[in-house]
């Protein structure tokens, strides 16, 4: 069965007919061709599919697409302030060496963006807690925590 839903994706109103069984991740990656969100498990274990729904970080693989009806969804493609520019979180991931294979990166950038929205100056321990739903096998997490800490510091100085 298909259902027509209205979502605001990265600031743009979209009307999509979705299979009611489909996850938000499947619709983002399939119908909407936004392949920046990744599937590492499909069952809510790894966080590679993290997007913001009304500003809150969610695993899009275990959110039904129909739940996003009438809501605002931000994906990794919608994080940059303007085309060609990186957000401070994105830039900090690049500068801190937090990107290796990059498969976890979109999800982590989204989770970090949400975390810093809720907690502007988290401690390293709080960063660890805030990002604990996102798995990364390449980095040992050190540089990822650095990246988030660096954003908080820079924002604090601004």
């Amino acid at each position: 069965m298909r259902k027509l839903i209205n979502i605001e994706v990265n600031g743009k109103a979209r009307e999509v007919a979705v299979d009611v069984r489909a996850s938000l991740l499947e619709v983002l990656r399939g119908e909407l061709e936004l392949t920046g969100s990744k599937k590492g498990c499909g069952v809510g274990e790894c966080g590679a599919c993290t997007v913001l729904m009304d500003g809150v970080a969610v695993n899009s693989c275990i959110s039904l697409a129909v739940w996003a009806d009438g809501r605002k969804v931000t994906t990794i493609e919608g994080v940059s302030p303007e085309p060609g520019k990186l957000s401070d979180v994105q830039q900090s991931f690049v500068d801190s060496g937090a990107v290796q294979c990059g498969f976890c990166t979109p999800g982590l950038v989204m989770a970090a963006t949400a975390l810093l929205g809720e907690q502007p100056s988290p401690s390293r321990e709080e960063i660890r807690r805030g990002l604990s739903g996102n798995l990364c096998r390449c980095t040992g997490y050190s540089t990822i925590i650095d990246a988030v800490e660096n954003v908080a510091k820079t924002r604090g100085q601004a």
Partner: protein
Amino acid sequence: MSNKVIGTSVPRWDAWSKVCGKADYTADIPVKNMLYGKIVRATIAHGRVLSLDTQAALAVPGVLKVLTPADLPRVKHATAGHPYTLDRSGDVYDKNILTEDVRLYGDEIAAVIAETQLAADIAAQKITAVYEEYPIYLTAQEAMTEGAREIHEGTKGNILADTTAKVGNVEEGFALADYVFEDEHRTQVVQHCHMENQTATAFQSADGRWTCISSTQIPHICRRILGEALDMPWSSFRVIKPFIGGGFGNKQDVTIEPLVVAMSIAMGGRPVRLELEREEVLAYTRVRHAIHYRSKVGVSKDGKITAWQVDAVSKTGGYASHGHSVAAKGGGILCTLYEIPHMSFRSRTVLTNTGNAGAMRGYGVPQITFAIEAMTDKICKELQLDPFEFRLANFKKEGAPHPLNGIPMVTNKVADCLTLGRQRFGWDAKMADSGAKGGSVRRGVGVAAFSYATGVYPYSLEIAGCRLTLNQDGTVKMLVGATEIGQGIDTGLAQIAAETLGIPAEMVYAEETTDTDIAPFDTGAYASRQIYVTGVAVAKAAEELKDKICRAAGKFYEIPHSAADVEDAFVINSVTGERVASLGDLALRTYYDKARAQTLTAEVSHNCHDNSYPMGVTFAEVDVDTQTGVVTVRSILNAHDSGVIINPLLAKGQVEGGMGMAISYALGEDLFYDPKTGEPLNNNLLDYKMPTCMDTPELDCMFVEPEDPFGPFGAKGLGEPPICSPAAAIRNAVCHALGFEINALPLTPGKVFAAIQNNRGGGADV
């Protein structure tokens, strides 16, 4: 001349595209008219499929075909991503794409092709099999038991390989010993857990050949194995590797590519995608070998090792994969870490009805290092020797030949790693601070050293290629057959090209895609080989291109080519130091000068006949809660000799990533199988304890940087070394805290707690 680009933290060129979600991995690449595949897996661990009922599956709307073994070539292939050997003796050809002979739970017995993934998944579940069941063997011991059924016909005693590496005469060595120590050590099965699951898409190209886009670490090897598995000429395939979400050795096996190409062939060339689920990756691709070591070491009164004997039994699962070479690698590691006048290293690799073990970061070395350094720790404790002095007295000396292959270990700074690391770690203060910490906490420190190799020479082929093209504006396009899998190799290689050419790193464009039709031949990402082997190919190509640039300068400008050089992207007169022209100006002329245009490229294939030895040491400080058995790593340092570090930020990333993996290897990860059925029990990321950032402590690393004469700009391998010694160091720290030994990994709370209880009750060590 001092280096300008080497040794600087050039940002990896692909980081921006990854933080924007622009980097396309295999599953992100759009393909028209795509079909979807699903593997049907055996629900027993050992037996034979007598019949398959596919009726219900074929009735699922959207299902187009079910493939069974009868639909595929009956030829067997070897899945290990090793370089080919001309006599085909290098690997074990034991795998059919689909099989009736079930050798492990989840073995691939059929496959569904459908118009949607959902239809394929539903249909796969509807296929039922009737089996003839055989006894299952989940441990090497069971599989080797007299009378056990051969998992592969003709493999006697289920022993895939039984080899012994020898130095001197071990019995003579024991006769010279004043003390002899013996013990046993065991390691567990763990999995790579690269975040991107294996994914591949296959279709027939316009030229009638077969393209396979795949998340493989070894595109050129994959192409050859496709040919072998499908019994078709190797050139009928084109393998394209886009961005990869990690591999760690698991994608050094060809696991899904032959099947997905077979599916496309069955569909008349229509594109088919096969994307494994996490549960399939964890249980049914490859895992790390669990190895059981029995060690015996002789030591003289003056604290010198006289003899070291190891008997290793390695569990390799249902197919050979890399099995025959993983356990055996330990012999070379042991005798290059320590000076061992008399060594005997026997390794038996045994087929079992469990998950197929293959290559995983470190290739058997985290296992043997655990056994070696646990023995070293035991010797030091029992003889009351200082663990630093004992190691320094026994380390293999720099310059000494590798006892098994004769190649001199020209640079070997393991001793510096030990002494400088000791200072940086603050070992002495931490040692003084160890002991009972109030409540139920006990604190301990531990150290462990390792030895490694770079690449596979002299045991296998080492070949790499690079093509450089001077673009119209003076920038350079670099194509290599080496595989970027997340480690940042192409940023490092671009630095080598830039340094050699005399241009800034950002003027060299790397390429995320390795396409076997386009990229120069190279065997790919494994054995920490690429910076060392491909790096030389890149340096040679850059020298050749620079020579061509200088010759072109001699044609286009008033300068003898012998005086021309390139510096900071300008052609200069090397005698006067004057700038003659920008590289961009020269490049434009090479393309468009009506009379003399000739574009400049250089292509080099490099056959490497060297090996160099990365070495290192881990220091760890832990707290053990004796009431819960919980081990907490308080601080940990890896000190590495990987030669000159090309890119410090990327190198740090490699080390920290390896340490993170190693810490959970020490403390938590373990893949379980149902003892009755052989079914994997925790093949998902909830029950399989891959670490989160809350489980990973702060990590520290340092580099001792001798200039290795063979590696480009003095570099040695670094990808795998960081995972080799942390587990052993953590184990030694835990034993120090507790005052008794635990000799099996992982050190989970349950195991540590049981060991504490046993020890209190005077029971044996675990």
